[in-house]
């Protein structure tokens, strides 16, 4: 990995892949090649398994042969122990890929008289290495020697010699050690002569146990310094890096539809960005699951593989409930585009949940996942742990360009902006939609609004929506004198509006008639005046004619 990552021409510290899922990422490529690595930790924290996995994966994946020198468990026990994890040591031994040598040092049988050294061990180890040309060596647990032999001075000197000898041999070695009280190991020696030190830990916090791993030292290389939780399951050990070292995942500008009619229009782009993560929060019964199912349905319709993690409902229940609002999830399940995984969050620790997610993502390769609800995970871990898990989850999803939709239940008691009381994941998500109750005048209505949408303009309105047998329907915005109206207020407002509309129409009609009447009166007046004028004209013209006649007569007389 580290090989690929380096952009500039520079010296790359030679490393050997660890074979442990995730550990290569933290160590930037693996254990130091050709050098000894110390793995220490208390009882039962997975030292033997980790080292065995290192050998076996080396053989199966990198074709590097190995030697396992066990000081504690006889070879047969070891074979049996790791068989349950799917590792077949016997076969590898038969194929001359692996040598397992059990070194038994029994204090009761051995007496010491005089000076000695551990040449026997060196020769056995050398013989084992040469017989299969091993490049990977494990010594588990070297401290047993201190329990079996008395002369500490010799042992310490010989141990130091062993580390140098391993280095000279050029094998990549893992040495395991029990954890000491003040120092990393009991003898306080190994950590100084190793080139890389990894501490394993197994802690129980609030009845939930978590295994953790930390790189204490790594000569000549950068490494992640945090404590990383790891898991042991049927496939061996996997480490979950808390956060990727970088935030450099690719982003997509493609937009996927929300599936809810009307909600798309609230986003300027018409939906969510592919590969973004969306949080739907709200109090109980605000249709978070419904919105989530709508999205799942929409994605399945487009033949996008979708995984739905339901922490509250069984798949059957979910399918039935969604059918009641006209969404058929069953057909997607049958077609294989949808998987519903139901489990109680308390079934596993957080880490195992994350790993399950991770595995399913790897196997099923979905483009969409839905987690309903993430707030339930709080019951498993503390808020801090949940957050750290979600960060890792989101990182992982981003890296795979998977669109993720989470729902989150808010506590009803949070009076102060219940929509914002979040598991502090709010800063992690790209898009945040809140569905909320809007109570008033004896009824409850559902409203949906967008709190944030990174990189996309969005509506600032609280939209009311109703759920009918046909599904979700976002209602048009109804503006009243005091803002947006919902529910009964919306209806009464509508009614009032209709009434006033009719009244207005009547008024207009009345006015029209009034005008008509006025016009008629005016016209009548005009007619009367004209008649008057005509009669006056007539009279005047008669008078005029008479006068003219008289004039004629007078002139004739002259």
């Amino acid at each position, binding site marked *: 990995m580290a090989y690929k990552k380096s952009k500039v021409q520079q010296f790359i510290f030679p490393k050997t892949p660890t074979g442990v899922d995730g550990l290569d990422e933290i160590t930037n490529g693996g254990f130091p090649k050709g050098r000894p690595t110390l793995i220490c930790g208390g009882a039962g924290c997975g030292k033997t398994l980790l080292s065995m996995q290192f050998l076996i994966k080396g053989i199966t994946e990198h074709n590097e042969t190995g030697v396992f020198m066990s000081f504690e468990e006889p070879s047969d026990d070891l074979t049996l122990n790791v068989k349950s994890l799917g590792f077949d040591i016997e076969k590898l031994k038969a194929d001359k890929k692996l040598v397992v040598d059990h070194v038994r040092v029994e204090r009761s049988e051995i007496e010491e008289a005089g000076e000695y*050294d551990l040449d026997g061990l060196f020769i056995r180890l050398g013989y084992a290495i040469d017989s299969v040309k091993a490049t990977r060596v494990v010594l588990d647990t070297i401290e047993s020697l201190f329990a079996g032999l008395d002369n500490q001075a010799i042992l310490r000197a010989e141990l130091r010699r062993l580390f140098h000898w391993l280095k000279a041999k050029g094998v990549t070695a893992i040495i395991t050690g029990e954890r000491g009280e003040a120092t990393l190991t009991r003898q306080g020696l190994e950590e100084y002569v190793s080139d890389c030190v990894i501490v394993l830990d197994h802690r129980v916090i609030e009845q939930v146990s978590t295994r953790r791993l930390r790189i204490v030292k790594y000569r000549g290389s950068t490494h992640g310094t945090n404590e990383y939780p790891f898991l042991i399951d049927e496939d061996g050990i996997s480490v979950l890096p808390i956060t990727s070292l970088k935030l450099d995942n690719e982003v997509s500008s493609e937009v996927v539809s929300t599936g809810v009619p009307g909600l798309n229009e609230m986003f300027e782009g018409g939906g969510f960005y592919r590969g973004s993560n969306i949080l739907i929060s709200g109090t109980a019964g605000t249709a978070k699951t419904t919105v989530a199912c709508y999205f799942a349905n929409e994605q399945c319709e487009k033949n996008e593989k979708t995984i739905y993690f339901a922490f509250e409902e069984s798949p059957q229940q979910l399918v039935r409930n969604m059918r009641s609002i006209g969404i058929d999830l069953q057909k997607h399940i049958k077609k294989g585009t949808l998987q519903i995984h139901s489990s109680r969050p308390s079934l596993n620790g957080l880490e195992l949940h994350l790993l399950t997610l991770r595995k399913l993502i790897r196997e099923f390769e979905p483009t969409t996942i839905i987690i309903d609800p993430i707030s339930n995970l709080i019951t498993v871990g503390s808020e801090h742990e949940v957050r750290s898990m979600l960060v890792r989850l989101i990182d992982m999803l981003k890296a795979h360009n998977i669109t993720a939709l989470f729902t989150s239940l808010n506590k009803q008691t949070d009076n102060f902006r219940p929509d914002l009381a979040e598991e502090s994941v709010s800063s992690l998500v790209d898009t945040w939609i809140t569905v909320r109750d809007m109570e008033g005048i004896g009824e409850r209505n559902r409203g949906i609004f967008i709190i944030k949408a990174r990189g996309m303009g969005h509506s600032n309105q609280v939209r009311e929506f109703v759920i009918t047998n046909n599904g979700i329907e976002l209602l048009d915005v109804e503006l009243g004198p005091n803002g947006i109206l919902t529910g009964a207020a919306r209806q009464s407002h509508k009614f009032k509006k209709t009434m006033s509309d009719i009244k207005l129409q009547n008024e207009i009609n009345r006015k029209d008639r009034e005008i008509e009447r006025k016009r008629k009166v005016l016209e009548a007046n005009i007619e009367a005046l004209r008649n008057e004028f005509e009669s006056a004209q007539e009279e005047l013209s008669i008078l005029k004619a008479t006068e003219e006649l008289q004039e004629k007569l007078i002139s004739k007389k002259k």
Partner: protein
Amino acid sequence: MDNSADENSTAKHKFILFVSGMSVKSGHAIENLRRICDKHLQGNYELDIIDISRDTEQAVAHQIVAIPTLIKTYPAPRRIIIGDLSDQEKVLKILNLSE
């Protein structure tokens, strides 16, 4: 004490000594062992010296870790002593040969 001496005289002691090449400690161990045996067993013993640098498989078979290692195979009980056997008294005590 006499009893054990009698036993020793009748039964042959059998030893295997594991050494590694020509190391100083190995040399010392061989010397010391021969001296003890000659003195206390009057030559009535069998000694195998195995050089594990050449005969590595024997080291695995006998669970050898430290060099030199002396294993007394007969008479019972089987005893394992590591070191160059310079602490003669301790060796005698362990081998049950002390007077």
